[in-house]
C-alpha cells in the first residue's frame, strides 16, 4: 500500500559509533534528516552530559556572532545571504572559528570604546565651543551697557557711599543643559536663590550626538551670574542635579578668544581621528558581513551535532557511543550510506554499525509529503497526528476538502479570482520563497497555495453548476422554459412546468431561475437535498475506511461488533433517505407533482412506525409501509448489537484466559511436588511460568477491566448513533453557507453595481459613475465575498472534515516523527531571529 494511505513503517535502530567517527556520522545524518534520535539519558541534567563544554563553546560563539550581527545592522551594511549551505566543520576547525570570532569581537569592542571616548571628548569640545561663542554675545551686551566694567557701579558713587561696601564682584558659571530641562531648571534656580541670580540662555541650533546612545539631542547654553560664594555653591548643586555640564569660561575677552582658537583646532584634529576610527570599524564590519550568514550556519550545525551526541550512551569501554533512533524502513539504505560516508570522512578504520531492534513501543507517525500534499497533511495533523499505521485521511481530503469548500463558495467569478491568486503564488513559487516574506498572513496563504488553487478550481465548477458568475447566470444551451404566449406586455408571467417546460438544462441550474421570483425557494430545496446526499456519502465513506483500519490491525471483533452494525444503521436510516430523495427526483414530473411525498414526513414516519397516505394518489412504491417498518426494526436491533456484543465477548475471552493461566499454575505446582528434590529444575520452571505470564500481559498492555470496557463501548455507541443523526443535520451547513454566499453577492450587485448601470442625464456621467462604482464593488467583492466568506467557508469545510468525517475512523492518537535535520534546525533558528 502506498505511503500516502498510511504512515511509513518505522523501525527502532541502534547505532554503534566509534568515538572519533561519531561527530562526522551525526553530521551526515543531520544533512540527510531522516532519523529521529531518542534521548538515552533523560535523567541526566543538561550540565552533567558529556559534550556540555562544546555546547557551551558554541553558545559563546553564537553570542559573539549575534553581537557582530547587531553591529552590522547598526551600520546598515547589507549582509550577503547567498543561501549556500556549508557542511558542518570538523571539530578541530571549531578552534579556528572561535579564534576568528574572538579576534573580531575584541577588535570591535576596542574600536567601539575608542570611538565612544573620542565622541565624548568631541561632544565636550563642541559644547565648549558653543559656550564660548554664545557667551561672547552676553559679555558683549554687558560691555555695551557698562556692566562688565568693574570700575563703574550700578548706583555710581552714591551707592558706595550709602552702603559703605566694597565694590561688588559678580561671579558666573557657564554650561550646557538639555533643552527640555531648561524650564524647570530656571524655575528651580529662581526659587532656591530667591531671584538673586541672573540667567541667560541661548539655544544650540544644531543637534548634538549623545556618545552612549547615539541619539541626536538638542541642548541649550546657559550662563548664570550671581554674587558671593554661598550662591555659587547652590547654583553648582542645582546644575549637578539637572545634569548640566559646566565648563570653565575665562573672564577676560582675550583669554576667551585664545581658548576658542585652541578648541577649534582640537576639534579638527579629533574629527580626523574619528573618521579614521569609523572607517576602520566599517572595514572590519564589511569583512564580517560577507561571512556572517555562513558562520551562523556552521555554528548552529556544530551545536546541533553536540546536542545530539549528548543524547547518546557511552559504551563501557569508552571506545564507542551508542545511539538509538527511529527511522523509516525504506530509508535504512540511505542511512547506511550516510554512516559509511561519515566513517570515511573521519578516517576511522572501524565501520559504524546499525542494528535493527525489536520493541513494543509505538513508533512515531511519519507521512512522507511533497509540496502539494503537505498543506493537506497539515490540515489533518492540526486535528491530531494519526496513530501509527492508521488510515491517513489526507489523500481523500485532497479532493473532498476543496469540493465541500466549493459547495459553500459556489460562484464561478469568485472562484476565478481565487484561482488566479493561487496560480500566481504557484507559478512564482521560487521567487516568493527566496524573498522570505515576514508577513504572517501572507505566509499562511502561501503555505496553503495548492489548497487555495484547488478550492478556486472547484469553486469555478460548482459556480457553473449553480449558474452563478458574480451572481449572474449565463445561458449557453438555451433555457428549458418557454414563454408560449405572445401578447400585451405583462410584468409577471407564471410559467407552468407542464406546458412551458421543454426539458432539463444540459448543465447545472437553468438560467431562467435568475430572473424568477421563487429562485430561493427552488434553490433551497435543491441545495438542502444535495448537501444531505453529499454528507451521507462522506460519512458512509468514513465508516468504510474504518473497515481498513480494523483489517489492518487484525481487529476482527471490531468488524463484526462495530463496523457492520454501524454501516447498517447509517444505510437504513440515511441511505434510505438518500434513495428516497433521488427516486423522488426521477419519478415525479410537473404533471403529478401533487402526489410527490414529502421526504421529511417520510423520515419522521419511518422513525415513528407510522405511515400517512396521500389522498387520491398511488403509493410511492409498492409495500412502502412494510419496507419502512422493517428498516426501523433493523436500525433498532443495531443499537444493542453495537452496545453489548463486544463487551460480552471480551469478558468471556478474559474469563477463559484466566482459567487457562490458573490451570498452568496448578500444573506447575503439581510438577513441583513431583520433583521436590531437584532444586535446579524447580527454579527454572518458576521463572518460565513468570515469563509466560508477563508476556501475556505485555501484549494486552494494561489490566482488563470489564466495567471500563462496558462504559467505553456505551459511550462509543451513543456517540455514533446520536452522532450520525446530528452529523447529517450538520451537513446542512453546506446549503446554509452556499445560500448566504449567493445572496450576499446578489445583494452586493444590486446595491452597488446597479447604480453604475442606470441612465443619467448627460451621456458621459454614467460612465464616470460606473468607473468609481466598479472600483468600490471590486474592493467589496474581494474584502467581503472572497476573504471573509472564503474564510468562513474554509472553517466550515475544516469542521466537516475534522468532526463529521474523521470521527468515523480516525483516532489521531500518535506522535509525530521529528527527524534530526539541519534544514529544520536552521529554518527554526532563522524564524526565531525575525
Amino acid at each position: 500500500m502506498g505511503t500516502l494511505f498510511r504512515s511509513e513503517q518505522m523501525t527502532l535502530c541502534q547505532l554503534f559509533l566509534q568515538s572519533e567517527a561519531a561527530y562526522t556520522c551525526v553530521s551526515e545524518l543531520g544533512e540527510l534528516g531522516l532519523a529521529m534520535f531518542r534521548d538515552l539519558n533523560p535523567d541526566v541534567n543538561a550540565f552533567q552530559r558529556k559534550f556540555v563544554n562544546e555546547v557551551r563553546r558554541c553558545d559563546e560563539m553564537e553570542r559573539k556572532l549575534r553581537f557582530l550581527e547587531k553591529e552590522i545592522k547598526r551600520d546598515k551594511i547589507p549582509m550577503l545571504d547567498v543561501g549556500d549551505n556549508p557542511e558542518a566543520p570538523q571539530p578541530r576547525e571549531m578552534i579556528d572559528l572561535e579564534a576568528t570570532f574572538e579576534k573580531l569581537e575584541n577588535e570591535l569592542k576596542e574600536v567601539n570604546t575608542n570611538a565612544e571616548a573620542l565622541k565624548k571628548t568631541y561632544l565636550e569640545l563642541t559644547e565648549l565651543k558653543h559656550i564660548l561663542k554664545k557667551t561672547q554675545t552676553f559679555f558683549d551686551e554687558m560691555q555695551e551697557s557698562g556692566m562688565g566694567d568693574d570700575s563703574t557701579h550700578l548706583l555710581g558713587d552714591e551707592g558706595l557711599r550709602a552702603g559703605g561696601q566694597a565694590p561688588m564682584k559678580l561671579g558666573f558659571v557657564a554650561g550646557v543643559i538639555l533643552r527640555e530641562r531648561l524650564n524647570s531648571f530656571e524655575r528651580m534656580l529662581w526659587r532656591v536663590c530667591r531671584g538673586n541670580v541672573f540667567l541667560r540662555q541661548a539655544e544650540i541650533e544644531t543637534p548634538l550626538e549623545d556618545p552612549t546612545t547615539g541619539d541626536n539631542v538638542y541642548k541649550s547654553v546657559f550662563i548664570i551670574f550671581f554674587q558671593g560664594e554661598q550662591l555659587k555653591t547652590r547654583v553648582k548643586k542645582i546644575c549637578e542635579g539637572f545634569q548640566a555640564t559646566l565648563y570653565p569660561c575665562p573672564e577676560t575677552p582675550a583669554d576667551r578668544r585664545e581658548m576658542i582658537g585652541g578648541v577649534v583646532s582640537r576639534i579638527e584634529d579629533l574629527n580626523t581621528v574619528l573618521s579614521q576610527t569609523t572607517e576602520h570599524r566599517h572595514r572590519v564590519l564589511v569583512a564580517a558581513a560577507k561571512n556572517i550568514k555562513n558562520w551562523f550556519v556552521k555554528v548552529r550545525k556544530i551545536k546541533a551535532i553536540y546536542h545530539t551526541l549528548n543524547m547518546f550512551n557511552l559504551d563501557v569501554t569508552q571506545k564507542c557511543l551508542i545511539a538509538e533512533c527511529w527511522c523509516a524502513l525504506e530509508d535504512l539504505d540511505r542511512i547506511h550510506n550516510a554512516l559509511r560516508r561519515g566513517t570515511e570522512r573521519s578516517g576511522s578504520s572501524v565501520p559504524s554499525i546499525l542494528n535493527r531492534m525489536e520493541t513494543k513501543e509505538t513508533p512515531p507517525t511519519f507521512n512522507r509529503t511533497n509540496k502539494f500534499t503537505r498543506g493537506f497533511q497539515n490540515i489533518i495533523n492540526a486535528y491530531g497526528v494519526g496513530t501509527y499505521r492508521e488510515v491517513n485521511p489526507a489523500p481523500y481530503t485532497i479532493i473532498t476538502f476543496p469540493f465541500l469548500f466549493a459547495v459553500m463558495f459556489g460562484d464561478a467569478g469568485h472562484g476565478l479570482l481565487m484561482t488566479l491568486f493561487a496560480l500566481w503564488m504557484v507559478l512564482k513559487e521560487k521567487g516568493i520563497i527566496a524573498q522570505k516574506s515576514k508577513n504572517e498572513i501572507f505566509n499562511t496563504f502561501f503555505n496553503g497555495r495548492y489548497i487555495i488553487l484547488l478550492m478556486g478550481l472547484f469553486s469555478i465548477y460548482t459556480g457553473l453548476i449553480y449558474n452563478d458568475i458574480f451572481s449572474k447566470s449565463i445561458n449557453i444551451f438555451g433555457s428549458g422554459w418557454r414563454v408560449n404566449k405572445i401578447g400585451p406586455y405583462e410584468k409577471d408571467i407564471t410559467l407552468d412546468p407542464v406546458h412551458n417546460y421543454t426539458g432539463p438544462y444540459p448543465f447545472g441550474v437553468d438560467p431562467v431561475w435568475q430572473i424568477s421570483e421563487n429562485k430561493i425557494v427552488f434553490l433551497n430545496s435543491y441545495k438542502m437535498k444535495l448537501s444531505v446526499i453529499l454528507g451521507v456519502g462522506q460519512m458512509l465513506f468514513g465508516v468504510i475506511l474504518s473497515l481498513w483500519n480494523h483489517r489492518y490491525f487484525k481487529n476482527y471483533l471490531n468488524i463484526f461488533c462495530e463496523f457492520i452494525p454501524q454501516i447498517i444503521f447509517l444505510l437504513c436510516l440515511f441511505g434510505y433517505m438518500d434513495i428516497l430523495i433521488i427516486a423522488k427526483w426521477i419519478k415525479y414530473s410537473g404533471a403529478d407533482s401533487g402526489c410527490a411525498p414529502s421526504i421529511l414526513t417520510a423520515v419522521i414516519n419511518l422513525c415513528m412506525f407510522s405511515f400517512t397516505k396521500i389522498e387520491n394518489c398511488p403509493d410511492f412504491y409498492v409495500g412502502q409501509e412494510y419496507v419502512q417498518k422493517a428498516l426501523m426494526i433493523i436500525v433498532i436491533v443495531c443499537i444493542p448489537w453495537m452496545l453489548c456484543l463486544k463487551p460480552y465477548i471480551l469478558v468471556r475471552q478474559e474469563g477463559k484466559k484466566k482459567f487457562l493461566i490458573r490451570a498452568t499454575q496448578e500444573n506447575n505446582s503439581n510438577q513441583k511436588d513431583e520433583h521436590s528434590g531437584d532444586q535446579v529444575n524447580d527454579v527454572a520452571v518458576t521463572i518460565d511460568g513468570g515469563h509466560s505470564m508477563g508476556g501475556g500481559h505485555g501484549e494486552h498492555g494494561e489490566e482488563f477491566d470489564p466495567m471500563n470496557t462496558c462504559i467505553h463501548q456505551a459511550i462509543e455507541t451513543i456517540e455514533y448513533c446520536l452522532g450520525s443523526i446530528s452529523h447529517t443535520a450538520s451537513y446542512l451547513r453546506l446549503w446554509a453557507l452556499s445560500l448566504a454566499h449567493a445572496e450576499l453577492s446578489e445583494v452586493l450587485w444590486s446595491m452597488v453595481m446597479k447604480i453604475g448601470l442606470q441612465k443619467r442625464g448627460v451621456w458621459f456621467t454614467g460612465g464616470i459613475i460606473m468607473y468609481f462604482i466598479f472600483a468600490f464593488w471590486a474592493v467589496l467583492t474581494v474584502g467581503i465575498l472572497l476573504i471573509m466568506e472564503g474564510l468562513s467557508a474554509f472553517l466550515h469545510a475544516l469542521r466537516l472534515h475534522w468532526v463529521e468525517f474523521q470521527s468515523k475512523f480516525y483516532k489521531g492518537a500518535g506522535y509525530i516523527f521529528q527527524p534530526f535535520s539541519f534544514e529544520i534546525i536552521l529554518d527554526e533558528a532563522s524564524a526565531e531571529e525575525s
Partner: protein
Amino acid sequence: MPCCGPRSSLCCLIISVWGIIMLSILGGLLYIDSIAFIEDLGIEDTETNPNATYENIKDHFEYAAYNCWIACGLYLVTFFISLQQFYSNKRAISS
C-alpha cells in the same frame, strides 16, 4: 516621478486590469441585450404601447453598455498611469 506608493500603485494596477476585462465584457453583454441585467437598468414601466416599451428597454440597454465602455476606457488610462507609477516605484527602490 512616483507620487503614490508601491502598494497603492499595485492595487490600482490590479483593479484596472480587472476593470478593463470585466467592463468590456459587461458592455458587450449589455449591448446584445442580455436578459440577465434587465432588473439592474431601472426601467420605468410607463409606456402602454408594446413597441414603445421595447424601444425604451433597448435604449436603456444601449446606454448601460456605453456606461461600461466609458468606464473601461477610464480604466485603460488608469492602467497606464499606475503601470508607470509601479515601474518608477520599482526603480526608486532598486536604485
